[in-house]
């Protein structure tokens, strides 16, 4: 045994020099991951850090590292256009969250009742999601046109004094955009909710039926609580989408009438690329990032906090 041990030892020593270095282990995989690493570090981390840094400067036409403290943020929060943008985003965000969840879940629940023609309904509810925001915005701009659209149709039916002209009324223009936004986005929520509903064990429904619980009560007391993770994930995705809303407004109203339907994303782009006020744009975009983080961090904490992810 000792002889064999010695022999083994010497054989081991021969190979000692060949141990591959840690760095070169999995080398191909590391080289193949370079695009991902660059994207993560240079674009997502690097560019974000760059923008935040420059938001504290007085850059105008070109980025310059002359720090001015919180000046840009002070200016931002005293700009009427920004305040309107924030107010619009808040109204649009809250309303579209509530409406798209209610509509999306209701539709999913209806489709989940083993109905005929489910595929047809699903196809109709979801097709707007395949379209560009530009297309959506332009179609609804046309449908809401006061001279030819819904308002005129109702007047032609005999209700002469009917008024429904959201796109030209500064007080309610954001709801005009909301209609289009819901039309485009609620199908997506429906799909996610439907996937969630389909993921629920059939036996739960059988058990509820044996226990004699009414369908609506089963939804409220059993199914919705079980779908909490689906709701939370959908919420995060939708919220981060809402904060980015830009194309829809550009196409439907161009921010008008006046500045009544401005949104933060549009403010940022215009400050950066049209008003040559870069640092103001950076500050505004940093605020957008901040509002995403407000949603994202609690979610990430709930989702990944405590347990390690495999």
């Amino acid at each position, binding site marked *: 045994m000792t002889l*064999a041990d010695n*022999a*083994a030892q010497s*054989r*081991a020593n*021969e*190979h000692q020099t*060949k*141990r*591959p270095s840690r760095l070169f282990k999995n080398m191909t995989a590391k080289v193949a991951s370079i695009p991902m690493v660059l994207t993560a570090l240079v674009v997502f981390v690097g560019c974000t850090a760059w923008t935040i840094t420059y938001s504290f400067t007085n850059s105008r036409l070109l980025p310059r590292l002359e720090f001015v403290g919180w000046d840009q943020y002070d200016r931002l929060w005293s700009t009427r256009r920004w305040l309107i943008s924030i107010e619009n985003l808040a109204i649009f965000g809250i309303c579209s969250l509530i409406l798209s969840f209610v509509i999306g879940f209701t539709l999913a629940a209806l489709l989940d009742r083993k109905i005929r023609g489910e595929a047809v309904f699903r196809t109709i509810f979801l097709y707007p999601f395949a379209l560009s925001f530009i297309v959506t915005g332009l179609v609804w701009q046309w449908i809401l046109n006061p001279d030819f659209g819904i308002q005129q149709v109702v007047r032609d039916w005999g209700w002469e004094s009917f008024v429904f002209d959201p796109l030209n009324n500064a007080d309610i223009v954001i709801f005009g955009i909301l209609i289009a936004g819901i039309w485009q986005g609620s199908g997506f929520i429906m799909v996610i909710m439907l996937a969630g509903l389909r993921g629920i064990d059939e036996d739960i429904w059988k058990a509820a039926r044996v226990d004699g619980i009414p369908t609506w009560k089963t939804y409220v007391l059993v199914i919705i609580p079980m779908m909490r993770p689906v709701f939370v994930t959908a919420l995060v995705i939708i919220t981060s989408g809402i904060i980015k809303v830009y194309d829809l407004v550009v196409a439907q109203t161009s921010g008008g009438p006046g500045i009544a339907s401005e949104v933060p994303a549009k403010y940022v782009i215009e400050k950066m690329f049209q008003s040559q006020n870069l640092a103001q744009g950076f500050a505004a975009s940093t605020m957008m990032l901040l509002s995403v983080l407000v949603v994202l961090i609690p979610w990430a904490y709930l989702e990944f906090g405590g347990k390690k992810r495999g």
Partner: protein
Amino acid sequence: MHSVEIKDLDLSFGAVKVLQGLNLDIHDGEFLVLLGASGCGKSTLLNCIAGLLEATDGQIFIKNENVTWKEPSERGIGMVFQSYALYPQMTVEGNLSFGLKNARVPKDEIARRVARAAEILRIEPLLKRKPGALSGGQRQRVAIGRALVRDVDVFLFDEPLSNLDAKLRTDLRVEIKRLHQQLGNTIIYVTHDQVEAMTLADRIAIMKGGAIQQLASPSEIYNRPRNKYVADFIGSPAMNFFEGVLDGGTFRVGDLSFSTEGYEFEKAPSGPAFMGIRPEHVATGDSATAQPIQLESTVELVEPMGSDTLVWATVAGERFRIRVDGQTEIRARDPIRIGFSAAQASFFDAASELRM
């Protein structure tokens, strides 16, 4: 002649130590079964031997060559997986020849080896089919064939029969044993099924917590388990245990005292201990009277299984299992006479749980 040698093998994932200072020598042509409950490290050990997991410390030799840092394909092993792991988009022939093509084996040599493996496993008619069109048993044959064509000395089997139904499992088990006799390769076979282990193995290594509890022939493991864990793990229904005190020639448990006559102690028989007796070594009725230890009890539950019947009773306050012939007439609440002998029992030290 050693076929596979494992020296002081350590493997940890972060802070979790899966294998610790593991040593194992496997002889040429041996059929070695790694047996244990799930999470005992048996599959991990097999993956280390295959080179699919990298050892944290220690060495692995195959055919006297240190392969610790070698790629799986360079180790001279063939491997069969539980889920068959056949490449779904390739035909059976493609599956068998994929490894050889990667090793740049000449075409006619590939054809020769594939034909030979197909003949041994009787899968020639299936060569042009895709795995999706095969039954479970056929898939597993192809998976074995993939190991076969590599012309290697060591086969690694990772629970190869677990995905098959009971009937097929028995058939393929016999076929694997026949294959081993025919080819004479070294086989390392991981399973959690003790019947597979007992029927196939030349030696069984029972693992728990990343360490080998006992490495011995099936009969040695069954008759002379090294420790209480092995005794409890092997055998179905499981061994009956009494906790008591050894004192010279008697084992006292509660008010009862059993003679230990006929048992060959390895250590001085004294102090607190466990006594274990297998359900099939317990006699009942008239034959019980011929046994040195005799008791009276009442039947609590009867589980007829056809060929034999499992009887549950209580002895010395412990649940007690007895295996009787399937034809025995026995009902719950019947009085029952039990007899057994210390010669067939096992004694374990209460503290170390090692065989005494």
